[in-house]
Every structure is written in structure tokens, then in C-alpha cells.
């Protein structure tokens, strides 16, 4: 039991400290990878919940997603490497106050609530249990997720892709701006 607490404290501290570092370091690269570190620490916390699968899949997904995020962070921030020191914090006092209050409220809720103790043992194979759930009771959610993802794909492509079937989006827009009279549907 004590071992478990030590692991929990170490991982929780790691997650918090690297989360804090996100706002302390100047370089966007370092900030994003600190965030990744924080998420990975949280992923490792899943192990304490006996959910190996959630640990591994969070680990896997977070890496890809954070590296994609670093592309955007660096592309869209001024001074991306933080060569000139800067302050990324706005309204620090309000933020600090809000943060402390939220923490206190949540912490007191944790302490005050009379948590129910589950009588059921965790399933022998959590991954299989998730699988049965996906193909059983949560089937609708699962298939809805598919449709949602498809909607997402079509939406991002319609918005982000420079070229579509009808040619260069930016070009088309310019023609329209000139009153060229073309009507290309989705490109407005």
C-alpha cells in the first residue's frame, strides 16, 4: 500500500511540476514537451487504477498529438524559441486566486464526500471488458463516434485544404472578391 502512495505522489508531483513549467519556460518547444511530460505522468497514474490499456493508449496518443501541437505552437507564436524572455501569463493575480479557490473547493469535496466503496472486483482483463462494452451496451456511442469523426474530417478538410476539387481555394475567393461572378458553393 505504501509503495502505491509513493508512486502516486511522485507521478502527481511530476505532472504538476511539468504542468507548471509549461508557463515558466520561454521556448514553445520546451513548453509543449513539458505539457507532454505532464500528460505522460497522468497516463502512468492510470496504472494505479489497474488500467494498463488506458495507460498505454493515452501514452501512445498523447505523443502524436503533442508533437502535432508543437508544429502549430511554433508556427503561430511570435518568438517561438523564447530567445527574448517573455511572460505568457495574463492577469496572474486573478488566475492565482481562481486556481487556489478551485483547488480548495475540489479538495474539500474530496475530503467531505462519503465515497461509496465498490464491492465488485475489477474485471480480470480490463481491455476485454472495454471491448465487450463497446460491442454491447455502448455500441451506439461507438458508431456515433465514427460518424462524428467523419464529420470532423470533412469539416477540417473543407476549411483547411487550400485546394479542393474546384481548384485553388484562395484563388477562387479572390476571383469572387473581384466580382468575378463564380459561385462555387462551399468555398465562401
Amino acid at each position: 500500500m505504501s509503495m502505491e502512495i509513493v508512486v502516486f505522489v511522485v507521478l502527481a508531483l511530476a505532472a504538476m511540476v511539468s504542468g507548471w513549467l509549461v508557463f515558466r519556460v520561454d521556448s514553445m518547444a520546451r513548453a509543449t514537451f513539458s505539457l507532454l511530460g505532464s500528460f505522460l505522468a497522468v497516463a502512468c497514474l492510470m496504472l494505479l487504477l489497474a488500467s494498463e490499456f488506458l495507460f498505454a493508449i493515452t501514452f501512445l496518443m498523447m505523443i502524436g498529438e503533442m508533437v502535432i501541437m508543437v508544429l502549430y505552437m511554433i508556427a503561430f507564436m511570435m518568438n517561438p524559441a523564447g530567445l527574448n524572455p517573455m511572460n505568457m501569463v495574463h492577469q496572474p493575480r486573478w488566475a492565482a486566486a481562481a486556481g487556489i479557490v478551485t483547488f480548495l473547493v475540489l479538495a474539500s469535496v474530496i475530503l467531505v464526500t462519503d465515497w461509496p466503496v465498490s464491492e465488485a472486483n475489477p474485471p480480470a482483463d480490463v481491455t476485454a471488458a472495454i471491448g465487450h462494452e463497446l460491442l454491447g451496451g455502448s455500441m451506439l456511442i461507438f458508431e456515433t463516434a465514427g460518424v462524428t469523426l467523419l464529420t470532423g474530417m470533412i469539416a477540417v478538410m473543407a476549411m483547411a485544404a487550400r485546394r479542393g476539387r474546384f481548384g485553388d481555394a484562395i484563388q477562387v475567393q479572390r476571383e469572387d472578391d473581384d466580382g468575378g461572378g463564380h459561385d462555387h458553393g462551399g468555398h465562401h
Partner: protein
Amino acid sequence: MHRARHFAFGRPRAFPVVGLGGVEPWRELLLHRQLSLGRGPRDADLLVLSGEIPTDWGNTLRALFETMALPRLVLYVAPGADTDPLPGLPPGYTASSVEGIDWTLLWERLLDSQGPSARALLADQPPTPWRGRGDHGQGGEGMMGGTPYGRPMAMTMEDPDQLALDDVPTALGPHFPGLPSGLYLGLRLQGDRVRQCEGVENRFPSQSPPPGSGHREPALRARAREAVPVADLEQARLRSHLGWLADLLDLCDRPGLAMRLREARKDLDSHALRRLLDRAESRQLYYQTRNIGVISSAQARQWRLAGPVARASGLKLDTRNHDPAYRELGFQPVVERGGDVWSRCRVRIRECYQSLDLLDRAGDAHTRAPEGARGSFLDTAGGGLDTPSARNLAALQPGLAGLEWHEAVLFVGSLDLDTEEAAWR
């Protein structure tokens, strides 16, 4: 310790700088078993100066040598060289030919931890003074301003996607491994795409072709109305094309085939060469080089491109076409229509076959066609020399805009520019 080091640096890595008449000594060194080819200068052991180095390269070469990690040494190889290459570079090892290199002595100097090469060469000054300046003592101002740690940051420029991202001035050359020495291209990059090429500079000094150039480039003699053996002309073309093909294959990550081509280039054995050329003209090379750096025939005509570069864009430009000796041999110029890097590879590879064929049949035919490996040598309006390489330089600036980095490098490589020749007047 010393023996371990001797073993460790037994095959020192070289970073080449090719000066006047330095191409052949460098190619010979590349084949030498005591030497291996490094990538950048940082990890190199030897800064190989091959041929006579123009004196105004001094500052660049000093800076380049200074960035090399220890141990390091200058190896200067040039015909008739007996002194140090340039004032300001630490004395290294000087040899008049590749065979004349005493490797034991070279190792001694390379591994001399007290020697002049093991000390800092340049004064310890940042590119721009920054210590103690600016808001935080790092030399910068505000978000993007000033020169933090000695250099400014890249500034924004609107790009074709209507994003305002950074526009980064980046140099390709004058000493990029795999591209001709002395060719400086000032690029503006957005990400890894070349937005525009701002400047093209050939850093070889203008001069008339030095005596003996006619040996390397027999077309020069033909231009002087001298009857030149067809065999000479074709051998020079074959050697030049093969050397170029090997360099391009190196850039395409095929060092093995490149080395074999260089090896076969020494004695021009027809059978071996045909086999290697067959292997080079492969689907891999096709997929790696097609649709890159397309030059249309109209552009080729407008920019006055020469030789295989023009012929790869569909122009039937070849002075041999009108030469009686070549006509007697049944000569037909090799023309491709694609205009991309692959077409330029294709033209040169097919010309290699053609040259091998002509060499078999030429006998002692003589010609006055001034068609060198890179195109024809013409006269300018003022009676000066108009070299094909100088004409082909015109393709760089318009051709580079919009290419990705790897395309840009292959594009420049595919033009087969001889920077020394381009400076002849």
C-alpha cells in the same frame, strides 16, 4: 592512448573545398582508401583544399575551419603546391599530388594536440555583441527585436497560403557537400520551401581559361578553330558526365553506385560502364527525380540555356549536329522533352552511351565543334568567351522559386554547373 587515437583516426573524414583545377584531385581523393567522406565540417577531421584556392575565400575558409571539432587539419592538394594554401589558415599538410601524401606524417600533424590546428583560430567575439545589452542582458528587445545571443530572429512575410509565417534567409552554398564549390545561393525559406532565390554568386574570380584547360575541356581548343580528335572530345564528355552522375547519386543517397561509377571513370572500360549506367538509369532514380525543377522549352530558350540542360527541355541545341565529322559518324543529338531533373539525368546517361559508341567508331576523326560536356563554347559580342556553365547559371534564380529543399538541392545538382568554367571570360 596515442595508439588508440592512431587507430581511431586511421581513415580521417574529409570535408572538401574545391578551388581552381581542384575537381580531379578531389575525385581522386574520394577514391582513396585512406580517406572517408564526411557530411558537414563539424564532424570532419580534414579540411581538404583541392586546387588553387582564390585568395578572397580566406575569411570563409577560416570560419569554416574554425567550426571543425578537434582534432582537425588542413590538407592542401594542388599541383605544384609547396607552400601553405592561404595566409590565416593554420599550416597543415601540403602535397602536390594525391600519391605524394605521406599519411604517417599527416596523422602525426592531425593528432598533435599542441599543434597550431588544435588552438582557436579566431578571436572570441560573437557575431554581434550582445552580453549585457537589452532588457534581460541577452541582447534582445521586446518580443522579436534586437540580436538575442548575437543574431536577430527571422521576420514574417505573407506566404501563398495567406499565413504570415517566418521568412528565413538561408544559404545554399558556397560549400554545400555535394554541390559545386564557390556557388553561393541566397535563399529565402518558408519552412522548407524556397520562397525566392535572392542572389546567385559565383565566387570564383573572373579570368581567362588558364593554360592547360584545353586538356580538360577539348571543346575550348575546338572553339579556337583547332581541329580536335573526336575521341578527345567524347572522352572528356564521358568523364564529365560520369563524375556528375556520381555526385548526383551521392545526393540521392546511393553512395555505393556513385563510388563504382567513380572507379569505372578512371579507365573508361566500356563494358563495365554500360553495366553501371544500366543500373543507374533505374526506376528508383526516376521516382526520386521526376517532376522536379521543370524547365519548359520556352524558358530554356529565353534563359539561353546550354548543352544537356537545354536538350533535356526539348531544344535540339548541339553544335555537333552541324559538324561534318560528326555527321559522318551518324550523330543525332540526344533530346528529352520533360525538362525535369529526371530528363537531365536521362539526357546525360544517354549521352554517355552515345559517347561510348562514338569512341568505338571515331578512329582518328577530327572536329571543330566547340561542344563541351556542358554545352557549346561561344563568343560574346565583344569577342570574349561565353561558357555554357555561365549561361546555365541563369536558370537558378527563376528555377529555384517554389521548390522544396530537397528538390532545390537536386535541381542545382542536375544543372551540372562548373563554377570555375562559369568564371572564364
